[in-house]
C-alpha cells in the first residue's frame, strides 16, 4: 500500500482499495487575538464521514476518505490518491472555551475556531490621570 504512494509507480486497483490506510492530514494552526484557528486538509471527505470529538482537552479528528470515483466503467491506470482514514489529534490549551468551538467544512478544508475563555484574555486597564 505505502509503496504505491511513495514510489509513485503504477499500482493496481486491488492495492488502492485497501481501506485500512491511515493518513495524517496536513494542518496549519495559528493564534489570533480571540483564540486559536486550526485548518485541516481533508480532500475527498464528505460531511457525513467527518467526526470531531472532544475528550477533556484532546480534540480528535477522524474522517473517512473514499477513493474519488469517476463515472461509469473505469479502471485505475495510475494512483497517488488512496482510500483511507484521516486521523489527527490536538491537545488544546486549558484557556480554550470548549463550549464555543466552531467547525466549518468547506471545499475539503476543515476550519476549527477555538476561542479563549474571557478571563484569559488580556484586560485593558484604564489609567486615569489625576
Amino acid at each position, binding site marked *: 500500500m505505502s509503496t504505491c504512494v511513495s514510489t509513485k509507480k503504477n499500482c493496481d486497483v486491488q492495492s488502492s482499495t485497501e481501506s485500512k490506510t491511515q493518513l495524517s492530514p496536513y494542518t496549519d494552526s495559528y493564534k489570533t487575538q480571540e483564540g486559536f484557528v486550526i485548518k485541516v486538509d481533508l*480532500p475527498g471527505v464528505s460531511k457525513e464521514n467527518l467526526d470531531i470529538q472532544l475528550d477533556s482537552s484532546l480534540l480528535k479528528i477522524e474522517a473517512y476518505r473514499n477513493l474519488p470515483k*469517476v463515472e461509469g466503467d473505469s479502471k485505475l491506470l495510475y494512483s497517488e490518491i488512496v482510500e483511507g482514514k484521516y486521523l489527527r489529534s490536538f491537545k488544546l490549551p486549558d484557556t480554550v472555551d470548549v463550549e464555543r468551538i466552531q467547525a466549518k467544512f468547506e471545499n475539503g478544508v476543515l476550519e476549527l475556531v477555538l476561542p479563549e475563555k474571557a478571563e484569559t484574555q488580556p484586560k485593558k486597564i484604564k489609567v486615569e490621570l489625576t
Partner: protein
Amino acid sequence: MLFPQLFNQNVHHPFHALEDFHRQFNQLFNEWAVDSQRDDLPPVNIWKTSDGLALTAELPGVHADDIELSVHQNQLTLSGKRKPLNLSETDKLYRQERDYGDFERKFELPLKVDVTKIEAKFADGILRVELPQAEEDKPKKISIQPK
C-alpha cells in the same frame, strides 16, 4: 611544517562535525522528499474509462476559479494557485504544513482527446476531469462483406 598540520582534515573540528551532520540530515530529508507525495502537488489518480480517460486531483482549499486546465497536443496541464492564509498582523503562526502558492503538473495522454468534450467538476476539494477519446482515434469496426 606546523601550519598544514594544524589544518589537517583529520583534526577534529566541532563545527565541521556539526556541518556534516546538517548535510547528512538534509540529504536524508531531500531523498525522502523526492519520493513523497508532497513533492509534486497536487496528487492525482488517472483512470481509463469506457469513453476515454479521467483524472481526479486533490485540491483542498483551492477555488474553482483558480484552477486552470489546458490540453496541447497530447499534453494535459493542470495548474493553479492556492491562496495563502489570511493572517492579520497580530496573528501568530504556530505550524504550517499545508502548501500555498502556484502549482503545475503536466501529463502525457496516451490517447487523442476530443478537446471540445472535456468536462471538469470540482467538489469537496477534488477535481474530476473527463477526457473523452477523439472519434477519429477510436478503434473502427470494419465490416466484412460476404462474397
